[in-house]
C-alpha cells in the first residue's frame, strides 16, 4: 500500500518500460490513490469539518480524549487485520474481549493478583483465537461459520461464568493504566502505538508477514511453494485473540468492571476500520497503519457527532454510510 515506488528497471533491460514518478496532479486524479489512502483522507476530512463546526473538537483535551477512546478499537483492528489478510474474518473478536474481561474480573475477585488476572485473560483469548484457527484449518470450515459459532459459544460461556452479573475490578494498576499518562498520551494510547509498531514490523519485516499475505493471496499457490498455510492461519487467529485480550484489559481498566455484555459495535467497527484501512477482504493485501487510522477515523466521527449534539442514534448510521462509501472507493484500488 505504502510501498515506495522504487525506480529500478532491470539492468540490461532494453525495452523495459521506464518507471517514472507520477506528478502530483495525476496522483490526485487517480482513483486508486484515494482508495489506498481512504482512511487518511477521511480522517483529515473529518478533522477539518468538525474543527470548523465545533472548535472544541480541536482542543488538546478533546484530541487526547479521542485518542484514548480510540486505543481499544486500534488494538482490535490490528487483530482483525491479521485475520482478514488471510482472507478470513474473526466475528468472535468482541465476544473474546468480553470473555477476557470476565476472566480478568473473576480471577481478580478470587483474590489472585491483577497481573495473573491480566495474563490469564490474554491467554484465554489467545486460546480462543488458536481454537478458531484450528477448527477452520483442520475442519476445513469457512472462517465466517466457525467464528460465528465461537461468537455464540463464548457469549454463553461468559454468561455462565459471570452469572450474568458484572464484576467490579478495583485495581490501582488498572486505574493507573486507564488514567495515567506519559508525555502527551495516556498509557492506553501508548499500548496502541506499541501494538501498531510491533504489528507493522511483523507484517512487513518478517517471513511470517510475507507468508501471511501469500496465504491470503493464493492459498493453493502458497501451499505449493511449501508455505504451511494452515499454521499461518492459526497464527493469524491467535494474534487476533491476543489483541482481544489486550483490548479486554484496556476495557476493564476504562470502565472499572467486567461486564458480561458484548459490545457489538467493537466488532463491526473493527471490520469497518480494516476496510477503511485499505485491507482487501479477499486477503493478500494489508497494512497496519491503514486500519489504525481507520479506527481513529471512526472514533473521531463518533466524537465529533457527540460534540455537535447529534443524537447517538445517528452514529451507527454515519459509520455505516462511511464504511459503504469506503468500500465503493476501494473498487478503484489497483
Amino acid at each position: 500500500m505504502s510501498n515506495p515506488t522504487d525506480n529500478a528497471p532491470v539492468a540490461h533491460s532494453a525495452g523495459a518500460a521506464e518507471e517514472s514518478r507520477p506528478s502530483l496532479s495525476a496522483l490526485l486524479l487517480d482513483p486508486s490513490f484515494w482508495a489506498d489512502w481512504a482512511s487518511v483522507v477521511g480522517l483529515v476530512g473529518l478533522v477539518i469539518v468538525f474543527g470548523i463546526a465545533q472548535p472544541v473538537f480541536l482542543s488538546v483535551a478533546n484530541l487526547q480524549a479521542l485518542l484514548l477512546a480510540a486505543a481499544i478499537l486500534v488494538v482490535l483492528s490490528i487483530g482483525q487485520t491479521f485475520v482478514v489478510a488471510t482472507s478470513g474474518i474473526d466475528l468472535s473478536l468482541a465476544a473474546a474481549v468480553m470473555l477476557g474481561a470476565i476472566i480478568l474480573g473473576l480471577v481478580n475477585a478470587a483474590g489472585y493478583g491483577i497481573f495473573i488476572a491480566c495474563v490469564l485473560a490474554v491467554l484465554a483469548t489467545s486460546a480462543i483465537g488458536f481454537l478458531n484457527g484450528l477448527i477452520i484449518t483442520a475442519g476445513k470450515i469457512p472462517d465466517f461459520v466457525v467464528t460465528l459459532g465461537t461468537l455464540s459459544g463464548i457469549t454463553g460461556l461468559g454468561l455462565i461464568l459471570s452469572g450474568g452479573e458484572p464484576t467490579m475490578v478495583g485495581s490501582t494498576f488498572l486505574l493507573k493504566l486507564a488514567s495515567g499518562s506519559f508525555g502527551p498520551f495516556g498509557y492506553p494510547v501508548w499500548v496502541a502505538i506499541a501494538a501498531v509498531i510491533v504489528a507493522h514490523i511483523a507484517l512487513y519485516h518478517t517471513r511470517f508477514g510475507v507468508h501471511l499475505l501469500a496465504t491470503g493471496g493464493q492459498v493453493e499457490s502458497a501451499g505449493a511453494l511449501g508455505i504451511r498455510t494452515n499454521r499461518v492461519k492459526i497464527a493469524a487467529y491467535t494474534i487476533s485473540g491476543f489483541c482481544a485480550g489486550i483490548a479486554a484489559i484496556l476495557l476493564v481498566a476504562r470502565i472499572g468492571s467486567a461486564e458480561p455484555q458484548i459490545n457489538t459495535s467493537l466488532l463491526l467497527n473493527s471490520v469497518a476500520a480494516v476496510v477503511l484501512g485499505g485491507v482487501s477482504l479477499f486477503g493478500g493485501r494489508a497494512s497496519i497503519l491503514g486500519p489504525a487510522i481507520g479506527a481513529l477515523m471512526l472514533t473521531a466521527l463518533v466524537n465529533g457527532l457527540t460534540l455537535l449534539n447529534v443524537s447517538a442514534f445517528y452514529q451507527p448510521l454515519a459509520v455505516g454510510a462511511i464504511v459503504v462509501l469506503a468500500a465503493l472507493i476501494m473498487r478503484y484500488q489497483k
Partner: protein
Amino acid sequence: MSAVSLSSASDSIIACNGLSKHFGGVRAFTDVAFQARRGEVTAVIGDNGAGKSTLIRCLVGVHVPDAGSIVFDGREHPFSNPDGARKAGIETVHQNLALIDELTVAQNLFLNRELVRRIGPFAFLDRKAMKREARSMLSRLSINVPSINQRVRRLSGGQRQAISICRAVGSGAKLVVMDEPTAALGVQETANVEALIRRLREQSVSVILVSHNFDQVRRLSDQIWVMRAGKMAATVRASETSGNELVALVTGAA
C-alpha cells in the same frame, strides 16, 4: 521399442526404474524407466492420459510411486513430498503459474526462502539484499519486468511464467521441472519463454520439460521420452528425430 537402455548413473541427474503408479483400479503408468541427463533439457511427451503428468508428479514428490526406484543426484528415494523434493534440489514450475498475485516480483522470487538478518532472537527480512539479488537473477536470464517492486497481478502471462522459471532456477536447483510452460501463452510470449529455456540450456541447467507441442520439444530439448497408454514407449535424441516420427511414437502408429 519398449526396452529402454539407461546410460551410466553418473551423468544422469534423475533416473527411475520399474516405476508404477495407480489410483485405486486406474493405472496411471506401469514399469516405467526414465532418466534425465545433467545439463540437458529432457522432454516428456505423450497424449492426454498417457501418464506423463503423473510421472512428473512422482518425480517431484507430489505422488509416491507404488513400485520402482527413483535415484536423484546419486541418492535413492531422497524425498517423499514436494517440500523434500525442493530441499533435495528439484524445483517445479507449475502449470497454473504458482505466483502470488498480490506480492511483488521480488517477494515472489524469494517466497519461502526469504533472506533474513538476525538480530538477537528475531529474524527480519533483508529486503535490500532480496531486491538486489532479484535484479541480478532477472538480468542473468535477461528477463524484462517493469520493476521488481511491481505486483505480479499486473504482469503478462509470459512475464509471470518467466518469473516462475527464474525463481526455480535462482533457488540453485539441480533440476528444474516445467509442466506445459507455454500452454497458457500467446505466440510472442511463447517465443519469449522458449528463448528463456534455450538460455537455461546454454547455462547447462538440467531441465525436464513436459509438453504437447512436438515442434517446441524438438526445438528446445536434447532428449525426448515418449509415453503412451501408461508405458514409456520410446526415447530419442531430439536432433535425430522428426515431427512425423514423434507423432507416430505418440499415437502408436510406428
